[in-house]
């Protein structure tokens, strides 16, 4: 029994199987919403209203020819997609969705916020390596842009995530979530941080307006230019799962987590992540891609100072409470 629960946790819920199913659903939700905002239909034919389209896309990619460029570093080139997928799946385990024990365990301990945050940063590094090891001009430019952008959004995002943690006086996501569940009004204090985190998440996911590293009309597929077949499918899946995990992280830290045990917790998780994905989609639809220098400018001129301001607000409020 002692081994069964962690195993279930890792493989079924909220581990691998749930993640795969839910992330493809989220992609469908994102695409459908995006299409409807643009007065289009969106995915339609595979499954009911096209709900299986992301799955079909991935199966199709798996069936396609898998090409490794001659000059590329073969081992790195093939290993990177798998690694990155493994990393984000691991990151998902730290979301406080279902806790079978209150005591600190392998998936919930003091400081797991930082662990989760850095697990989410690793794919960015892998994107850079993927671009660099493809030995393609467009990939290299894409890889460099990935890193440049990383320096822009990472610090504001960390600062933004820091403020709710400071207010809750804990580094454990579960405890932060509990804190805000008990005092829902305090969530409003972090509203600036919430929006900064959503914007930074959009940048992390490399979606419009921050799809600079793989801006199709400029540098073809960016870091993914040389990837095809299975490997590209892994990267696509990675994007979907990263979106779910990122949305879950923001929901857990800023929106009071997912209370109520197994089933209510699941309902809260779906509700809250879908809300954040809705925000991400609306941002994607309403804005245009910006240039890399504009992005860096924006994050250091607006995001970072605002995140610091948020931190100050939190510290002052904390001082008043004490």
């Amino acid at each position, binding site marked *: 029994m002692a081994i069964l629960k962690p195993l279930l946790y890792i493989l079924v819920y909220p581990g691998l199987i749930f993640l795969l199913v839910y992330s493809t659903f989220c992609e469908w939700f994102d695409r459908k919403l995006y299409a409807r*905002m*643009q*007065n*289009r239909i969106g995915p339609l034919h595979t499954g009911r209203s096209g709900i299986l389209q992301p799955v079909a896309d991935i199966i199709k990619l798996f069936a396609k020819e898998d090409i490794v460029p001659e000059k590329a570093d073969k081992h790195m080139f093939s290993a990177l997609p798998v690694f990155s997928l493994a990393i984000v799946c691991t990151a998902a385990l730290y979301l406080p969705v279902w806790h079978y024990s209150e005591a600190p365990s392998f998936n919930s301990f003091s400081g797991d916020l930082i662990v989760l945050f850095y697990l989410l940063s690793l794919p960015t590094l892998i994107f850079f390596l993927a671009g660099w090891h493809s030995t393609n*001009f467009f990939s290299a*430019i894409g890889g460099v842009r990935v890193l440049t952008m990383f320096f822009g959004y990472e610090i504001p995002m960390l600062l933004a995530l820091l403020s709710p943690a400071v207010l809750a006086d804990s580094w454990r996501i579960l405890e932060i979530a509990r804190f805000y569940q008990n005092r829902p009004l305090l969530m409003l204090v972090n509203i600036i941080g919430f929006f900064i985190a959503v914007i930074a998440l959009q940048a992390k996911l490399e979606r*419009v*307006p921050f*799809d*600079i590293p793989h*801006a*199709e*009309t*400029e*540098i*073809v597929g960016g870091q993914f230019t040389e990837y095809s077949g299975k490997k590209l499918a892994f990267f696509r899946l990675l994007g979907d799962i990263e979106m779910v995990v990122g949305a879950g992280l923001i929901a857990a830290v800023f929106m009071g987590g997912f209370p109520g045990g197994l089933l209510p917790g699941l309902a809260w998780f779906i509700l809250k992540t879908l809300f954040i994905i809705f925000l991400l989609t609306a941002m994607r*639809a*309403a*804005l*245009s*891609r*910006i*240039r*890399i*220098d*504009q992005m860096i400018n924006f994050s250091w001129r607006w995001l970072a100072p605002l995140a610091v301001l948020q931190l100050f607000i939190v510290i002052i409020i904390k001082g008043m409470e004490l």
Partner: protein
Amino acid sequence: MEFKVALGPQHPALHEPISLRMTLEGEIIRDADLKLGYNHRGIEKLAESRTFIQNLYLTERICGICSFSHQTCYTQGVEKLMELVPARRGLYIRTLICELERVHSHLLWLGVAGQEAGFESFFMYTWRDREVVMDILDWITGNRVHYSMNTFGGVRRDIDELQKKKILDTLGLLKTRTEYYLNIGASEPTFANRLAGVGKLSKEKAIALCAVGPTLRASGVPMDVRKDDPYAVYDEIPFEVATADSCDVLGRAVVRVKELLESYKIIEFLLKNLPEGPFKVKAPRKVKENEVYSRYEAPRGENVHYIKSNGSDKPERLKVRAPTLANYAATIAMLKNGFIADIPLIFAAIDPCICCAERLVQLDNPRSGESKVLSFSQLRAMANDRYKKINFKKKDSAWPF
């Protein structure tokens, strides 16, 4: 560190094959060059072996977007050669379709600008509203892309009262939508900041490099064939030439939107003043020996056809200068010292129609890089040689070989 890269001939930003050779320093372009000739179709040569009537449909197929521009340019040239005065009602209808085509082309461009800048919603909405114009064109000419409306001496189909009313009704919708897009494009910072200050082309340089169309007008030069050398019935129509002084991609967008608004006024004027009478007159089949230079303001700029006749029913020479070709020199100047991220925007801002502009193909030896010049007789001998060697299959032998 400087390195050389080639964008294209296959690249997502380019809808047709062309190669941009660039010398980059990080994300900045230090030097640029263009390589053409990937889509040479031999249209001019083909035109020499067709009758004037057959060439109507050949010239129409030079371009897909400005099909009517090329056809009208050719038709007007041949009408001058024939010394034929077209029917007045026919001319009005012809001008009407010119303007409708300009509307659909400019709306298309707005969408393309959105797409190149990564503003997909803008692209979707402009193209949705472009369907309104496409439907009008479809409805009055029968088809969406190749209208085939021109014939020597007028047009081939008339417009009835119902069609007239319908076009006038939809103009209001188009006008509000266009104004809305102007507002969006200029107010959305992520989009406007991508366009403003990008691809600078000063007035002097624009003139020196012989830019045409909106590219030239956005540099503050009010040059428009419709005003300077009026054809069809443009001398009777009151309209303004749209210009902008910002000399950048944003200026080119603004010029196009202003032209859209002017076009709606022109269409309204044409429909309200449509004269009665026949819409075409009979044209001769043979053309006297002569030559003509026909100018036309296509949505992309000045379009030129040179036609030479020799007394038979076929032209001796047809030379087409599409507006895109005239803008290439300016494009290279605009690309220099820009960002990689701006390449698609700068290039799209001239509204390139690449295969319309291909009149020549130069074959280099890809390994040694050397190029050869062949005289016409050598080329002919080479072609004859080639064709002797080919074994045609019986089944396909009827045509095209």
